[in-house]
Each structure stands twice: as structure tokens, then as C-alpha cells.
């Protein structure tokens, strides 16, 4: 009898997909790995754009009374720089890493809602493009700017129709509302995945720290990005339908905007910082060859930071004229949030202590992070001391502080993550030599730019000024600050070149080039579309350590 044979996969000749086919696959994909890469690539693109904006700012401020850039253009630059770096670079790049890594780390095949994942990415992309289209499409009325020019916090009533004429503000509001939908959708997706799709044996207490921290961050996003969306809707109603939410002439409150914005804004910076702690908590143990010191405390500290960060927002408002009681409350809560953060630094040090440290590029960036973040934390505690802040707030001291936090805490750790996980994503190692060049150039440039800004602030330079006066003693600090920029640009160029070259010509990575211990290293590099041939069963926090050290598995100690 004749039997119909089904063709084996190997027999089917689909031919080599054309470039258009490959592009189509990327556009319609719902695979978490591809979407993760798309988020990261989009964010790196915006990193370059935001970097150009920062470069122009520093060129204008290199000398006093410069006329390189007009006041209007400068004001749009710092607004777009801040908005871009927070919403179009920071959030998406972390969403990208979470997208890529979480299913792999928890032993799942994809996120809980793959189509929602694709929706979230594309809508984030669209929101970013909408915001940037303001440069071209928002008509500039006399005195009004084409792009948004009111600072990334959009304080009312400056953003009300009276003081922000033209449509630039509307692009900002709509762009951010849309990007916010993407963040919320992503948070629902990732949190649901972590709660419902962990592989057998992976209790919450056995998740990798990056996964734990990601869970805390998604919860924070749900609680704080939504209020930003709501506040932006209120502003939109003011601007387009004549409502009076922040219209001070009709009895509206400018301070209410600030409370709402910072209720979002402060936890937002922890949203930007915590995933970096997650990266570092994966990388430092592997490159010290030791288990993370104090896993339960690290989890507790992360959750603690999440909670306490919800109670500190008015430390951005110490100069508003709140009562002494309110100022004292927020001073205390701000001081307290530094404790779990400090605990984490000590736990990382405890991990390194007694280890055998391998100073590869991911570890170099983690060390840069540790020192930079230590400074950031210290200046943060200084800023919790309200009377000191009455002098320092809204000056370049604060600018220096938060760049130490966000570049030291977010960018350095993202660079570390790129060097660490690039082999997994592409199957190729990045060049160590170029990595070291990247690190040292960037470290030098970053410190040259931002250390002097502490002094500029203490000598009386406020932020968001398009120029400064010659007789204030600010020249040296501003000049040195601007000199640091080309170093940072060179460092980033090294990274981009490294990524492009290593993608084709890097050393083949294999499954587990770093001799690491979490599940993503148990599958091929890059992983197959289905991630794992057979979903693993885990018995401890370091399943691969158990496999590599059967005589001394982790579960005997946890």
C-alpha cells in the first residue's frame, strides 16, 4: 500500500529568504527575543540622538555668553534631551533587556502575551516618532518653539496654552501618553509572565535577582506611569478643551502638577536604576566566581526600595514652600531610601570579597558603576538635607547628581549588560580590546563632564540656562565639563564599531562563554525560537552551578 509521507523539516526547501522577507519577519514578529532586540536597537538610536542634543548643549555652555545656539533652540535641546533619555532611551532599553532575558531566565518559551508585546513595542516607537516630528511639523509662532521647550517635567503653568503657544506642547503630551501606554502594556506582560510562567521548581525564592528586580520594577511602572498618563490627560484637556486643571488664573494649582509629576517622577528614576542593579547582581557573582552574598537581603532591599521610593516624591519640591513638617517628613523618607540602596552596594562588595575576580569588560563597567553610584548616593543624601538643598536644588549640583545616578547607574550597567549578553543574543563575543577602550574613554569623559558641575552648582549656576555670565567664577568648571564630551562620544563610537564588527567577525561564543549559572546560559547562542528543547526543572537559584558542581550543589545551602 502506498503511504503518504510527510516531508521532514530538513527536506523542505524554502530557499534563502530575501531581504524583504527577512524585514517582514522582523516587523510582524511576536517573539520576545526579536522584540527585545528591537527595543534595544531603538533605544540605542535615541541614545545617539539624545547624545547629540547633549553635545550641542555643552558646546553652547563651554564659554560664557556664547552665541552658538539661540535661547529658543537651547531650551528645546534640554527639554528633548531629558524627555528622550528618560522615555525613549531608558525605559525602552530596559524593556528590551527584560523582554529578551526574562523568559530565558525563568525557563519559559515566550512572554505571557506575545501580541501585546509587539503592540507595546510599536506603540513606543510611534510615540517617539510623534514627539520628534514636532521639530518639523509644529508651526513656530513668534516666541514659540517648534519642539517642546519647557523642560522634561513640563511644569504648569508654563505648559498651559497661554505660555506655550503653538503645538509643540501637544506633541510632547500626546507622545508621552502613547509611550506610557507602551510601558504599562509591557509591565502587565512581563509581570504576568514572571508570576505565572516560571518553570517547574522555580519558586519566587529561586528566581535570578534580575528577574526579581524586574518584577518589582514592573509593579512600580503600573503604579506610577499611569498617574503620569492621567496628569498628561489633564494637561491635554487644559490645552485643547479649555479646562482649568493647572490654569492658575482660574484657581488652578501649579503645585498640584508638581505633586502629580513627581509622584511619577521619583519612582521613575528608581524604575530606571533598579534593573541596572539586576544586571550587576548577575554579572558581579559570575566574574567574582562566587554566589551573590545575601540573596534574601537583596530581594528585601529591592522590594524595600520599591516601596519607600513611593514616599519621597516631594524632595523635588523642597523649595516650593511646604510646611516644615512636610519638608521634614520627606527629608526623612529620602534619607531612609538610601539605606536599602547602601545595603546592595555592600552585598556586591561581599560577593567580590574572597572571590577570584576576572576583569573582563562587563566587570569593568560594573566597577565603574559601583564607584559612580557611590558618589550619586552620597550626593543624594546631601540633597535629602533640606536646608542644604535650598541652596543646591535647581542648580548644576542636581544636574551632576542625577547624571551620576543615570549614567553611573543606568548607562554603565547597560553597557555591562551589552558586553555580557551580546554573546547570548548573537552567538559572537565582543572584542575585549575595544571594550576596554570604550570603558576608559567613557569613564574619563563622564567624570570630566560631571564632576565640575557639582562645583558650578555650588557657585551659583542654576540649571536650564542657555548661557552664564562671565563674572561668576563658572568658566573653568563649564569648560572642563564640555571637554569631557568628545571622550564620551569616542567611547560610544567604540561600542557601536565593536557591535557592528563582532556581529560578523567576533569569536564564536558557544552556549556559556562566561561559565555562568542562570538558565539563559543553558541553551544555544542565539537561542532557538522555542528557547529550550525541554523546559528545565530547577532546584536552586543557580541551576547551572548544580549541574557543573554535582558534588556541592546550591540547594544544600539555600
Amino acid at each position, binding site marked *: 500500500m502506498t503511504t503518504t509521507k510527510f516531508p521532514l523539516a530538513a527536506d523542505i526547501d524554502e530557499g534563502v529568504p530575501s531581504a524583504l522577507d527577512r524585514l517582514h519577519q522582523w516587523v510582524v514578529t511576536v517573539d520576545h527575543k526579536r522584540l527585545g532586540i528591537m527595543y534595544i536597537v531603538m533605544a540605542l538610536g535615541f541614545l545617539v540622538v539624545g547624545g547629540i542634543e547633549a553635545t550641542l548643549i555643552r558646546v553652547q555652555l563651554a564659554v560664557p555668553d556664547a552665541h552658538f545656539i539661540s*535661547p529658543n533652540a537651547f531650551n528645546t535641546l534640554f527639554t528633548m534631551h531629558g524627555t528622550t533619555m528618560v522615555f525613549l532611551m531608558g525605559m525602552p532599553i530596559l524593556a528590551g533587556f527584560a523582554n529578551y532575558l526574562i523568559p530565558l531566565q525563568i525557563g519559559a518559551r515566550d512572554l505571557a502575551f506575545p501580541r501585546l508585546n509587539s503592540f507595546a513595542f510599536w506603540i513606543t516607537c510611534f510615540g517617539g516618532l510623534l514627539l520628534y516630528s514636532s521639530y518639523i511639523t509644529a508651526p513656530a509662532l513668534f516666541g514659540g518653539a517648534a519642539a517642546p521647550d519647557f523642560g522634561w517635567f513640563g511644569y504648569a503653568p508654563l505648559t498651559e496654552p497661554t*505660555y506655550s503657544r503653538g503645538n509643540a506642547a501637544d506633541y510632547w503630551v500626546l507622545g508621552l501618553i502613547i509611550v506610557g501606554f507602551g510601558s504599562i502594556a509591557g509591565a502587565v506582560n512581563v509581570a504576568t509572565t514572571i508570576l505565572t510562567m516560571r518553570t517547574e521548581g522555580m519558586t519566587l525564592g529561586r528566581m535570578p535577582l534580575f528577574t526579581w528586580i524586574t518584577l518589582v520594577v514592573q509593579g512600580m511602572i503600573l503604579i506610577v506611569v499611569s498617574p503620569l498618563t492621567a496628569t498628561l490627560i489633564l494637561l491635554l484637556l487644559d490645552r485643547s478643551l479649555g479646562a482649568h486643571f493647572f490654569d492658575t488664573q482660574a484657581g488652578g494649582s501649579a503645585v498640584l502638577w508638581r505633586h502629580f509629576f513627581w509622584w511619577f517622577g521619583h519612582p521613575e528614576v528608581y524604575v530606571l536604576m533598579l534593573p541596572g542593579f539586576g544586571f550587576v547582581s548577575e554579572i558581579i557573582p559570575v566574574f*567574582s566566581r562566587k554566589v551573590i552574598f545575601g540573596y534574601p537581603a537583596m530581594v528585601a532591599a529591592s522590594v524595600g526600595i520599591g516601596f519607600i521610593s513611593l514616599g519621597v516624591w516631594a524632595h523635588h519640591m523642597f523649595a516650593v*514652600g511646604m510646611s516644615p513638617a512636610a519638608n521634614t517628613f520627606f527629608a526623612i523618607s529620602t*534619607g531612609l531610601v538610601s539605606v536599602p540602596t547602601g545595603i546592595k552596594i555592600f552585598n556586591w562588595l561581599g560577593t567580590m570579597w574572597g572571590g577570584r575576580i576576572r576583569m573582563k569588560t562587563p566587570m569593568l563597567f560594573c566597577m565603574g558603576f559601583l564607584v559612580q553610584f557611590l558618589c550619586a548616593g552620597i550626593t543624594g543624601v546631601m540633597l535629602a538635607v533640606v536646608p542644604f538643598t535650598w541652596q543646591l536644588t*535647581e542648580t548644576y549640583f542636581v544636574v551632576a547628581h542625577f547624571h551620576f545616578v543615570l549614567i553611573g547607574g543606568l548607562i554603565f550597567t547597560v553597557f555591562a549588560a551589552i558586553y555580557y549578553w551580546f554573546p547570548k543574543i548573537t552567538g559572537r563575543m565582543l572584542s575585549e580590546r575595544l571594550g576596554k577602550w570604550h570603558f576608559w574613554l567613557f569613564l574619563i569623559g563622564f567624570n570630566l563632564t560631571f564632576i565640575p558641575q557639582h562645583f558650578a552648582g*555650588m*557657585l*551659583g549656576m542654576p540649571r536650564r540656562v542657555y548661557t552664564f555670565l562671565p563674572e561668576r567664577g563658572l568658566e573653568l568648571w563649564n569648560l572642563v565639563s564640555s571637554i569631557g564630551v568628545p571622550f564620551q562620544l569616542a567611547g560610544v563610537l567604540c561600542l557601536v564599531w565593536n557591535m557592528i564588527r563582532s556581529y560578523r567577525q567576533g569569536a564564536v561564543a558557544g552556549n556559556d562563554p562566561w561559565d555562568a549559572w542562570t538558565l539563559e546560559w543553558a541553551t544555544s547562542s542565539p537561542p532557538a525560537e522555542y528557547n529550550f528543547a525541554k523546559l528545565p526543572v530547577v532546584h536552586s537559584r543557580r541551576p547551572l552551578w548544580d549541574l557543573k558542581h554535582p558534588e556541592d550543589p546550591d540547594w544544600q545551602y539555600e
Partner: protein
Amino acid sequence: MVSLAVLAAMIQATDTVSSIFAPVSTPAIKERDLSMLVLVLSAIVFVVVGGLIAYNLVRFRAPAGDQSTEPPQVYGSAQVEAAWTVVPLVIIVVLMLATARVIHEVQAAPQPPNAVEATIVGRQWWWEIRYPKLGVVTANELHVPVSDSTVRRPTWLTLESADVSHSFWIPRLAGKTDVIPNRTNHTWIEPFVTGTYLGQCAEYCGTQHAHMLLRVVVESPEQFARWVEQQRQAPAGDSAADSGRRIFLGTACISCHTVAGTVANGRYGPDLTHLMARATIGAGVAPNTKDKLRAWVKNPDDLKLGALMPAMQLDDEQLDQLVHYLLTLR
């Protein structure tokens, strides 16, 4: 790193015009004193933790070559973790106690009966200054009498905004306080050394935020009294400036500006009655000289791009006459 190097900055600070470490007024002095405690504690923390990081990196570097042996795995230590939770907590508690004390001392200070009272109204991009009890209205330049330890005479400031949020800041005199529409804030200064102190708006408020500068002139009680007297008088008429005055009154100047003793009583722009008693124009963007004044009136955008005062399209002869008149407003 920051706090250690701050010492270097402080050494030259007394030289600097608007350094927070060269305070001459009570609130700024209290803030500086508190900051010393903060900086010392910060320096200690930085040295200790930074030292630990450095030690770790040097001492526990993997020897080149041997990649196979793993070090002993240490999962945690309750005592060590407790210690490094408690010690930071203690440091924070100490800082917060000091913080609470100074917050109270500055914000809840009672206003003495002899305090000078002034109201500052922040506007895009200049400062309106009124002394309600003294009947004085001026702009951008605040005059106050110096205080001394025997006869304390601080100045109490009421802060209001006519448009968007601003922030009132003269670093050597006090910390900043925001100037917010639909909200009245208060602050105070008590300078002990005469001189002119510079500050500027510290809350982004639009195009020319960078040039919304402040001058505080601290003078002896006698000089202050004389200044008040001068400010109260209407300017003496000068017939040589008649043509200029006619141009002033006939052009739209009067819809924005006030000159006491004339029909000009506009409130949108600064009061010009004693324009020439001030050291700068355009809220500090240029010195108050004949040439700069002429340039300003000809086209404010040339000196301060985006300023809300329009160019009045006057020809050269009209400009000269008008400036001649303005120069009589002492």
C-alpha cells in the same frame, strides 16, 4: 571625591560672587554650617566604601592562568548584614535630626517688628519689587539695610508670581524659595556685610530664564533711608528733555510702564520712575549706560532675545530724544 575637593573650592569661595559657601546672611550661614556636617560625613563614607572597593579589586584579582578552581561560596552572614544596615541607619538619623532643627530655625523664624518688608513679584523675565509700607516700587534691584548683632534688622520677603513659576535665589543671602502663581510664599534674609550680592531666577520660566538676574544692595541704615527717600519722590522735571518726554507719553510706552507724576501708569513692565538709580537694565542683561539703554529701547531683542518688550520702531532722532528723557529719571 566631591566633598574632599569641595574644600579646594571653598578656599577660593570668598572670592566668588555667588558661592553658597560664602554666606553673609543668617539663613545662608545656617545652611552652610549644616552643610559642613554633611560634607564631613559624606567624605568619611566615600573614603571607607571607596577604599573597600579598591581593596577588593586589588586583593581578590584572579591570578592569571588558573581558571578552574572556584573560591569558597559564601551565601551570606546575618551579623555582617545587620551591621551594614544599622550603621548607615545611624548616620541617616544623625543627619535628619540636624536637618529637622535647621528647617525649623529657618522656616519658622518669627518676623521681628522692625523687619523691612518687601514684596517680590516674579514676571517673565524680570522682578517687580515693592515695599508696601514704605511706598516704594522698583525693579530687579532690592535695597536692604545691613543687620548687625546688636540691632538685628532682617528683611522679610513676600513672593508672588504674575505668570509662571520662578524661584528667588541669591546664594550668599539665603536658600532659594519658589515664586509660584496663585500661591504666596515667604522668605527672609539678614545680611551682616554691606555690598552688592548677585542672584538669579532658579526655576526655568521660559526663553530668557537665564537672564532674569537679581541684585541685592545691602547698605548702611542711613544709606538705605536715603535711598527710600529718593525712591519716593517724583522725578524733577527737566525742560531740556521735553521732546523726549512727549515721545515717551505719546508712544505706547505708557501702556506698560509707570513714571510717577505723569499719566504713564502701565503695570506690565518695570516702573521707570527712578530708572537711572538702578545699575542694570533688562533684569541684569546689560549695565545701565546711555549706549545700552539706547540699544535696548531701539530693539530689546538685540540684548535679550525673546524679551516681551517690543521694538517701538523709533527713528534715530526720536531715540536720542527719548533716551535723553530717560536719563533724567533718577
